[in-house]
């Protein structure tokens, strides 16, 4: 069994095209895709701004037109370079927060700024308030620009409010002490103002929070960047494509006649099949290490974000092991079904690309509608990609990806059993 695996690895090591397909092509694909996606997100119709347009920022004002909310909107409009409008229906009726989030879910807008009820009253009373940016934008630079613009105005408002507050305290002191010497007012005012300024820097009255929606059941904020989505997605795509390596290896054995020699040897049929899938399993592990290492160290050198592996590396290893088994078993299934080289290289490859698309390797399914996500669940790709996103972008841990691991192992078992059952040893 191990001798078959070792022999297949030796053959694979000499197969330059297979190595390029497994290791180099995914990197090229990821870089090109992220580059194109970056350009597209800045210019496509689904984006909220063209290269020379101001970024749209619909606002849901729950403060009821309070002066602080109005000042925030005006400040962002004037200083932030954003196109800020009250988010309203065609008749001019402002949307509620729920309605606005529904529009966001429906991808009608890329982001919504929600100003909470009581915003003005809180600020006037010196109580902290939080405004929220709900965003589904895949363009990290645009999201960052919006957040910085809103934070800049909010910080100014905080400072202004806190300085005003310090002056009000000074006035109150004067009123409380009729003997108060105006000559000492400046001596008192300066430390009070400085203290308020420092407080506004460290603990601003207005805090800005950005949330990412929302996986299907989705309540957790998601940290999305092109690299965090692209690297795992394309890794899964190319990992499953290596299932063809197993299928092609078995096909070549049959074509060359070496399969007859294997059948004539004391090796059993099951050890023979297991021996054939071990190399694929090892290749998958190497692929993940190589692609993720490239994501961490190579992509930043190209001006892209670095890939972050999340918080639970052991869970990541477990997921990758399950993925490797699933992929290798799929190779046995393909070998049992495909009867010609064209069926392995053409039809099987096409099927794997379609499954990858349905499974969310190209576009995360939580960004698409629910029916697409439901269809995607019948593919092993979906569970692999979802597991990676849970670990890498949502910061989840082992307990959260056990369902993905279990489903991938179930797929592996079904693939192997059906493949072994259908396998024609004497063909």
């Amino acid at each position, binding site marked *: 069994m191990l*001798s*078959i695996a*070792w*022999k297949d690895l*030796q*053959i694979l090591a*000499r*197969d330059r095209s297979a190595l390029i397909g497994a290791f180099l092509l995914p990197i090229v694909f990821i870089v090109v895709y992220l580059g194109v996606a970056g350009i597209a997100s800045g210019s496509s119709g689904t984006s909220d701004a063209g290269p020379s347009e101001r970024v749209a920022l619909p606002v849901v004002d729950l403060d009821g037109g309070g002066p602080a909310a109005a000042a925030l909107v005006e400040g962002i409009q004037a200083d932030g370079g954003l196109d800020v409008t009250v988010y309203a229906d065609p008749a001019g009726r402002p949307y509620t927060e729920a309605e606005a989030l529904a529009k966001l879910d429906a991808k009608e807008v890329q982001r919504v700024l929600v100003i909470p009820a009581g915003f003005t009253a809180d600020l006037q009373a010196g109580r902290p308030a939080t405004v929220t940016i709900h965003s589904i934008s895949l363009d990290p630079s645009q999201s960052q620009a919006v957040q910085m613009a809103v934070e800049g105005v909010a910080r100014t408002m905080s400072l202004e409010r806190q300085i005003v507050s310090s002056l009000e305290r000074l006035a109150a002191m004067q009123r409380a002490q009729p003997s108060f010497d105006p000559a000492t007012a400046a001596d008192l005012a300066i430390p009070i103002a400085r203290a308020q300024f420092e407080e506004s820097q460290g603990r601003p009255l207005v805090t800005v929070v950005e949330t990412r929606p929302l996986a299907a059941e989705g309540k957790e904020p998601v940290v999305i960047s092109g690299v965090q989505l692209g690297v795992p997605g394309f890794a899964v795509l190319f990992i499953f494509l290596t299932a063809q390596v197993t299928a092609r290896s078995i096909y070549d054995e049959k074509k*060359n*006649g*070496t399969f*007859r*020699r*294997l*059948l*004539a*040897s*004391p*090796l*059993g049929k099951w050890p023979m099949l297991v021996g054939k899938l071990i190399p694929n399993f090892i290749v998958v592990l190497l692929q993940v290490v190589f692609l993720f290492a490239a994501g961490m160290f190579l992509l930043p050198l190209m001006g892209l974000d670095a890939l972050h592996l999340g918080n639970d590396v052991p869970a990541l290893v477990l997921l990758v092991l399950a993925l490797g088994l699933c992929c290798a078993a799929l190779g046995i299934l393909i070998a049992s079904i495909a009867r010609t080289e064209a069926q392995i290289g053409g039809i099987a490859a096409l099927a794997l690309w379609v499954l990858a698309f349905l499974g969310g390797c190209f576009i995360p399914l939580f960004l698409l509608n629910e029916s697409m996500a439901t269809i995607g669940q019948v593919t092993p790709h979906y569970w692999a990609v979802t597991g990676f996103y849970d670990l890498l972008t949502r910061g989840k841990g082992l307990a959260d990806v056990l369902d993905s691991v279990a489903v991938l192992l179930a797929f592996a078992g079904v693939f192997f059993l059906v493949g072994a059952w259908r396998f024609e040893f*004497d063909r």
Partner: protein
Amino acid sequence: MPAILEADGLVKKYGEHVAVDDISFAVEEGEVFGLLGPNGAGKTTTISMLTGVLEPTAGTARIGGHDLRTEPTEVKRINGLVPQDLALYPTLSARANLQFFGRIYGLKGRDLRERVDDVLEVVALTERANEPIEKYSGGMKRRVNIAAGLVHQPRLLFLDEPTVGVDPQSRNHIFESVMKLNRERRMSIIYTSHYMEEVELLCTRAAIVDEGRIIALDTIRNLIARLGGGVIQMGLERLDDEMLAAMRALPAVTAVTIVTPQPAATAVAAAAAAAVTGEAAVAGEDRPTDAKPAGPVVKIETRRSQDALVQVVGYLNERDVGFTSIEIFEPNLESVFLHLTGKKLRE
């Protein structure tokens, strides 16, 4: 001598098609046994069943005292298989190929290295053992193909048409290797071929196989002796019962039978037979090789072919009957096969 192999009623069916039909034979320890028959006769299927590649539809075999059906692993350890096709990994070196085929039989470490070195020496490829075999000539690949079947020191070696597509020099080398393995290592060998001269040269006994059945099994000498003096196959312009009776009555003729004419193949087959057997193939007239014979073809079995030829030609001249072709098959396995089946081995 004890039998190393006893095949008992082996049958292999694919749906309605019967590829091997109730084949039984025994091979003695240390014997080189031939399976002779045309392509498609069932030789490779028989070998595939005996080596555990295919499961028999019916029947079984005992090899080295182990039953093929109930003790397949023990049987496979005794067997060595050299398939007809080059069953090797082209991008690996000869040494890497042989190491792999040794490992799957459980060899490892020093034993494996020594066995690989040994078989490389047997096939005279030690010098180029570390080159990828895709760079080898066809003959060299054939030799590695044989070495791969030897590396685990099988007691019974199955050689399935090992010389197909091989140049004469490599062919001779293969013959020498087979004889050496049998003589010096007492290896039992089952050798399949549709080249009768190979079987005549290498084997002590042979089974002649046609359409999935053994139609004759004996020592080579006894098989040839069955035929007597050889066979003449002659195309005639015409033939009637009187001529047939007269030719049968000629002193040097033992039998005359009518062969169904095979127009397009006759002349081509004659040329091919002559090229391979080295026997004389006499054309009656100069005519294109794809021309159809004008009349029937008869097969004349003789006590001595030269005498019979003189007598038959003399009789035809007397009757003023021309002939369109003559093929003379001296007594050998080719003519035995023709005698038994009415077909040539390479038809």
